[in-house]
């Protein structure tokens, strides 16, 4: 209970800071400013962070490797590729349709990564993230080529570097779907934990392995698409939040999934606050702040952890 009291105190402090920080100052229309901009922005950062952290832990359980997260499986790049193609072929498509295409593309991208990963020897935990970086790089390069050739670099840039300055009421509400997906993941938390025991063990326990894995990956794809289309891509959130929580609290997701979600939300909100404060009144994208911090934590993980498996 003390844990949750502290967590909520910290969360409340971050929310108050986020609500009171920005280029515009509170005047007579403070309520309007809060409603239209500050509250949506704060909620967006929390929801996106929670979603990315949950997506991270699901991917880690599926591939049984702590050093992997959706952005190291080619999912965001594949999603961008899908969005670019939609923009070219059917520019007038409704947002829901674009989301669907983005999610399907992310799922395809991850399927490609998993097919590659299945052929890798599992002894070296570093191989999976390295192959993920290369794979994501290749898909990303295809995106850049298409965007360059079709004069869509501006779109691509907005997706690649996630930030929250454009979040306003009416422009971020899709992210609330993440709250529903988080609820769904909590319902199947035991199943996701069992996935992490490996296929043979999971199936021996009577888990429908293929179905559970598919459910997990679909959720990851939808979260990736929701975040990407609404606020852009953020590296490392899915890596950092689950790893810090696992270090501290263990791997039982029935207990820790809420903490992972809240931790991811706080991480991204903190990054956004730092990005707003550091060169006030100008802003640095939250993705940039997260990348600096996340890279540091990633290096620490590499140094301290042998990954998920060792002989």
């Amino acid at each position: 209970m003390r844990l949750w009291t502290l967590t909520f105190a910290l969360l409340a402090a971050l929310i108050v800071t986020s609500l009171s920080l920005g280029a515009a100052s509170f005047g007579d229309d403070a309520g309007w400013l809060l409603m239209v901009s500050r509250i949506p922005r704060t909620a967006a950062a929390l929801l996106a962070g929670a979603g990315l952290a949950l997506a991270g832990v699901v991917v880690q359980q599926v591939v049984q490797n702590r050093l992997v997260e959706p952005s190291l499986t080619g999912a965001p790049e594949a999603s961008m590729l899908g969005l670019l193609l939609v923009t070219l072929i059917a520019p007038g498509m409704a947002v829901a349709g674009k989301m669907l295409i983005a999610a399907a593309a992310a799922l395809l991208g991850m399927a490609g990564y998993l097919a590659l990963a299945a052929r890798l020897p599992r002894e070296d935990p570093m191989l999976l993230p390295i192959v993920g970086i290369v794979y994501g790089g290749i898909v990303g390069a295809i995106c850049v080529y298409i965007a360059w050739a079709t004069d869509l670099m501006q779109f691509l840039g907005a997706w690649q570097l996630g930030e929250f300055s454009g979040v306003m009421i009416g422009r971020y509400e899709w992210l609330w779907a993440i709250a529903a997906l988080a609820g769904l993941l909590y319902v199947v938390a035991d199943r996701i934990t069992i996935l992490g025991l490996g296929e043979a063990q999971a199936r021996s326990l009577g888990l429908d392995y293929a179905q559970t894995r598919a459910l997990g990956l679909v959720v990851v794809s939808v979260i990736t698409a929701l975040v990407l289309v609404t606020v852009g891509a953020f590296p490392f959130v899915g890596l950092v939040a689950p790893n810090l929580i696992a270090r501290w609290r263990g791997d039982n997701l029935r207990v820790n999934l809420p903490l992972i979600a809240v931790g991811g939300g706080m991480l991204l909100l903190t990054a956004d606050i730092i990005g707003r404060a550091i060169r006030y009144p100008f802003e640095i994208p939250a993705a940039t702040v997260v990348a600096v911090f996340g890279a540091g934590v990633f290096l620490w993980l590499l140094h301290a952890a042998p990954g998920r498996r060792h002989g």
Partner: protein
Amino acid sequence: MIEISSLSYHAGPTPILHDISTRIECGGITALIGPNGAGKSTLLHCISGLEKPSSGSVRINGIDPFSVPHRQRAKTVALLQQSPALVSRLRVRELVSFGRWPHHQGRPCRADEEAVDRALVAFALTELSDRTIDTLSGGQRQRAFIAMTYAQDTPWMLLDEPLNALDPRHARDLMARLHGLSRDGARSIVIVLHDINAAAGWADHIVAMKDGRIMAQDASASVLTEETLRDVFDTPFELLQHKGRPVVVAR
């Protein structure tokens, strides 16, 4: 009883198991021995319903593990795969509790908690129950995984090389525990062993495999002959008797 009839298994074009037909009676410990690549693990996976045979059938206590619901299968047979040495940060008690998952599917009741307690006691893990798996020694980790398999409370426990990476003391300790647990007839254990003397010392029955076929199967004393072992392992052995127990020495 496990009944296997005309079972063949191919991994792609490579044949692994050839037309195996046999029965394994309930009760006690049945050891699967044989050289590397004999198909022991594959046979275990086929029996447990995890690898579908290319042809032939498996019946375990009368049920076909491939046609019954996953949950029913998981209440009949539990498999511990070879070296599940993942660096999990689950606590020992949490891991063992997952053995109850086929019974409660996420809503454990009192009986499940008691079964977990019994498994922790049976494998001397009570003191370690709050430790995370990645902080345990190899022997403790292996015990924790076997305790999970035990907590699954199935009439059949299939263990794939559980003595891997265990020192002699922990290997002996584990075999003694399994032997004790299989005496009442309610549990039947099929275990893949590389240490022939562990099989000689603790198994009631031995199935000797080579090149995807069963070479010999009988009560332990009958299978452990110099001729059979030489044929199975392609290397000469000497069979000694020590305090009434057979001891196998590679020549």
